[in-house]
């Protein structure tokens, strides 16, 4: 499945300082769909190069990270259970505190 993943608010530093990743994520054998839970584990394995604890805590993102699926907060689409579709855009962004 072709997806665009974007990292911001400093999270890009965890994946070679690259903000936009066009990726192809395979649906696992026996599954009929790709969920955000699957994607997080794929990102953790394939994109995060350092300090994974800055991206995840337990099986979800760490506190302070917003997840957006097609410009919409994943809280509105079922969080970890959100089903992804071809060409979806998923944004992971860390909240900023500076001024």
């Amino acid at each position, binding site marked *: 499945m072709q997806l665009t993943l974007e990292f*911001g*608010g*400093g999270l890009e530093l965890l994946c070679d300082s690259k*903000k936009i990743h066009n990726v192809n994520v395979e649906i696992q054998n026996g599954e009929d769909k790709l969920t955000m839970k699957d994607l997080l584990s794929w990102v953790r394995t394939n994109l995060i190069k350092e300090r994974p*604890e*800055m991206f995840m805590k337990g099986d979800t993102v*760490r*506190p*302070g*990270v*917003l997840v*957006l699926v097609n*410009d*919409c*907060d994943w*809280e*509105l689409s079922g969080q970890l259970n959100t089903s992804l579709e071809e060409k979806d855009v998923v*944004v992971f*962004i*860390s*909240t*900023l*505190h*500076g*001024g």
Partner: protein
Amino acid sequence: SSHSSNALEPHMIYRYSRHLLLPSFGVQGQENLLNASILVVGAGGLGSPALLYLAACGVGRLGIVDHDVVELNNMHRQIIHTEAYIGQPKVKSAAAACRSINSTIQIVEHQEALRTSNALEILSQYDIIVDATDNAPSRYMINDCCVVLGKPLVSGAALGLEGQLTVYNYNGGPCYRCLFPTPPPTTACQRCADSGVLGVVPGIIGCLQALEAIKIAASVGEILSGRMLLFDALSARIRIVKIRGRSMQCEACAENTTFKQQQFQEFDYENFTQTPLSVGPLRLNLL
């Protein structure tokens, strides 16, 4: 608000004529502004343009909270301060600048750090709060105080080459804790002093904060509530995304919450976020 209504005097008609000409703003919008009070917490990178535009546009009473002094390394982004004010309190400097561009509005100086002990008393004097601070505990504290007092909160942040903006606790919309019930790890809370910031980025976010505060005060337009603006300066890209609504589990704003003024005053924001509310200037360790 505790003000009496201002009618537009002739000098005001002349000063604000470009606003009065706007069909979707007009006399009513300007009168609403003149009768409104807005507090800006932080006279730094975000507060500088926010304060200048709020003063210029004719907000009736404009408050400034800050405990810091102007430093040379602020000057690349904190355009409200002049070199002549280096070493002096930011509140004093910012208030002087606001008065110099609009002598007809009331500017209130709160030259102190905002803490649980004084926040209720200070914020309760204003209709709208602008969070222009630079650290996580202040953001939670200001949010909770706004929730307890029922005030809309225009929240901006900037770091590096990115900025974020939304309005919390507006008209049934979410508060900061609805989005971020658990504080991030302290290693994720970088300050401009640690990581740097391109000066004009808080400039853009601060202007957008002034705009949202003006829209709320004037009762015009669609407020950026339930939506968040994400700005990436390097790629010149801006997203406006839909965020969750008010959370039924929110410790601060859920209907059945027990979080009231007393709980607010007793809450330890520094311990909650494992971060001090204010920090002295860091030594530079560069080059």
